[in-house]
């Protein structure tokens, strides 16, 4: 960006001044412009108001064909070539394989590989990502509170990597240098109990952290509450436990707010939910209006201190970090998350008309650089 940041025209200062001389010369044109609301402050510019333009400066550019509706990326991303589809990712939970330990507890084993991979993050824009299992965000790991977790991590990438889980575990399992950070070609097994329940994350903790994060090494790490341990909120806990009939009533979505600095200048070029900018604009998320919606939302946007989630035409309950069974925020339509903050959003479209309902970050810049989508609320499909 820097080396080519050259304006096309930089006429001499002498010339700049003279530009206005035409304004003076074109007095006739100016007379017309003098009627406009900007005339006193922008007299010289109104003098430029050329034949084809209206005298009113605010009316000048509004006649564009397309206008504001054209604010989109051009084309579509080849999800097949990427090897992951943002729509499929919404409901693609990685539950691993289970076995029973001697003490009767469930041992849940996951296999994760670090892989370098170029991915298309917006139509035509390719990013040299570092991935877990070839996808960004990495697999959405899901377990139940109290289970023993074993994560077998192999580094097939070109740099040292780790998996640092936001959970409760020993120092040896922390995924920082000296504790589970491995070189290319090496393997490490993280093992700890699944606690506390909630909506968490894991990410690479190799240094420099910023680079390893924004290259794509992060993912959701959801621990469902064990209903037996929460008798006072058994209904809520049951609805959150993956695989139960109560849980199946919900439309659960895994959403990771991320962004990509494609030219490595410390600012993001593409913002997204689940990596691909404008993904859910091009393919709105189908929502059965009769069933409630639960979003596991995580913010891993680098460089910008916070990200946010705003839902159109509706309000939701929010469980910050998901570690409670009662909402931490009730009836809001906007929440903010700092880096690595996450939470659970619950809402319903049951009383709504069908149609497209937008959701996006309410930092306009993020929205307009790709982090925006639609829920396509439809009648029950029966």
């Amino acid at each position: 960006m820097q080396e080519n940041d050259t304006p096309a025209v930089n006429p001499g200062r002498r010339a700049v001044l003279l530009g206005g001389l035409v304004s003076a010369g074109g007095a006739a044109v100016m007379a017309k412009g003098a009627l406009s609301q900007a005339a006193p402050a922008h007299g010289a510019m109104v003098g430029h108001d050329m034949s084809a333009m209206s005298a009113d400066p605010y009316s000048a550019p509004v006649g564009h064909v397309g206008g504001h509706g054209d604010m989109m990326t051009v084309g579509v991303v080849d999800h097949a070539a990427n090897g992951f589809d943002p729509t499929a990712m919404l409901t693609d939970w990685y539950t691993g394989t289970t076995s029973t330990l001697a003490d009767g507890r469930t041992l849940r084993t996951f296999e994760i590989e670090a892989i370098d991979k170029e991915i298309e993050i917006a139509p035509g824009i390719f990013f040299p990502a570092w991935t877990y299992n070839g996808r960004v965000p990495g697999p959405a790991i899901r377990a139940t509170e109290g289970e023993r977790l074993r994560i077998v991590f192999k580094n097939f990438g070109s740099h040292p990597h780790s998996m640092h889980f936001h959970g409760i575990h020993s120092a040896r399992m922390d995924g920082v240098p000296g504790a589970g950070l491995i070189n290319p070609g090496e393997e490490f097994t993280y093992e700890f109990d699944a606690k506390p329940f909630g909506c968490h994350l894991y990410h690479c903790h190799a240094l420099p952290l910023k680079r390893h994060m924004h290259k794509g090494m992060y993912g959701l790490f959801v621990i469902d509450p064990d209903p037996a341990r929460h008798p006072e909120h058994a209904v809520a806990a049951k609805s959150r436990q993956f695989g139960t009939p109560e849980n199946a009533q919900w439309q659960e979505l895994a959403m990771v707010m991320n962004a990509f600095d494609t030219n490595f200048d410390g600012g993001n070029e593409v913002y997204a939910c689940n990596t691909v900018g404008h993904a859910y604009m091009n393919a709105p998320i189908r929502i059965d209006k009769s069933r409630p919606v639960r979003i596991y939302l995580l913010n891993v946007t680098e460089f910008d201190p916070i990200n946010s989630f705003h839902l159109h035409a509706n309000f939701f309950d929010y469980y910050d970090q998901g570690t409670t069974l009662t909402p931490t925020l009730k009836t809001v339509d906007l929440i903010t998350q700092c880096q690595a903050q996450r939470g659970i959003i619950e809402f319903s479209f049951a009383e709504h008309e069908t149609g497209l309902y937008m959701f996006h970050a309410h930092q306009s810049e993020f929205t307009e650089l790709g982090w925006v989508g639609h829920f396509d609320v439809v009648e029950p499909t029966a």
Partner: protein
Amino acid sequence: MTEMGTQSAPNAPRRAPLARFLLVLVPLALMLVSFVWIASLDPLRSFNNGAPPVEALTVERTVLDQSGLQLLVRAGGSEPMVIAQVQVDDAYWLFTQVPAGPIARGDTAWIRISYPWVLGEAHLVNMVTNTGTAFEHEIALALPTPRATVNQLVPQAIVGAIVGLLPVALGLMFFPAMRGVGPAGMNFLLTLTIGLLAFLLIDMTNEALELAAESAALFQGSAMVWLAALASFLLLMAIGRWRGAPVGIALAFYIALGIGFHNFGEGLAIGASFAAGSAGLGTFLVLGFALHNVTEGIGIAAPMLKARPPLWTFPALTLLAGGPAILGMWMGSLAYAPQWSALALAIGAGAILQVIVEVGAYLLRSNPDRQAALFSPAVMAGLISGIGFMYVTAAFIKI
């Protein structure tokens, strides 16, 4: 030894034209074969370190109109470049590219964005390529781009006339007053001319280099400026000296030509500032500009003080020196690219240098005692006045 040496030249074999032609073909054919061989076998493969291709994109024109924004971009990458997405003010916008597809090195394409730009405000266009490299282009002040209409061309011509024709004409009107000055007065006027030309030379060279720096790398802006200036200097020297050193009316016309190039370059820059949307000038500054350029006419008149120029000479000189400002205005506002303006300014710098040399030569010839004349108070005063006047009046017009 000496004889043998002198004899060897005539004894050198003389070849038939056809044989000579064939001998030229041999290295050319070998060159072709070796290039094909290198390209096909790619012996440089081992140097491939996995680095992404070098990308360069230069915006040469910016057009704002009712359909939105249009940018003429020139690619300068090591491989054809793909513009994947375009941001305007940190938002992705639909865009079309004409011609579509990858842009080969050196090629240009129009990027059209249906963007509701805001009059008088700034916008930032950011073109993101398939590798994620971003090329920013700032529109410092959004104004509708002028079009080639009568409403547009006439006011531009008026400005061109005020900038170019008026000061030259006013300066030439000093001619009757200047006639009949003594040798010291003559030396003063000639060195005044050299002084003001020296200022213009520095000014033009600076501007040419600034513009050259903005142009695409493949134009090698700096080298282009210096070489174009040198070539134009040598060419004009050769033409001027065709039948002896120019004096009198002929020298006046050469000065007018050099100043004409200068004013053409000025016009281009002014027109371009239109296209770029720069503006803002009061009457005071207009007057400052006229004052600044008024010496141009005096300089043109100086070498013909001893001649008897016919009356038509004066409008002809005025048109030659000042007219190009109008042409430059039009061209600059309608078809602007920094490298062509740099080229015009460089040619002008060469022309200015030529007249500095010729006026200097004329000064030396007209003073029998050169050394005494060179360091005479009149000559020193003339040089300092010329440069000083231009420098001080430039303060009125530079912001």
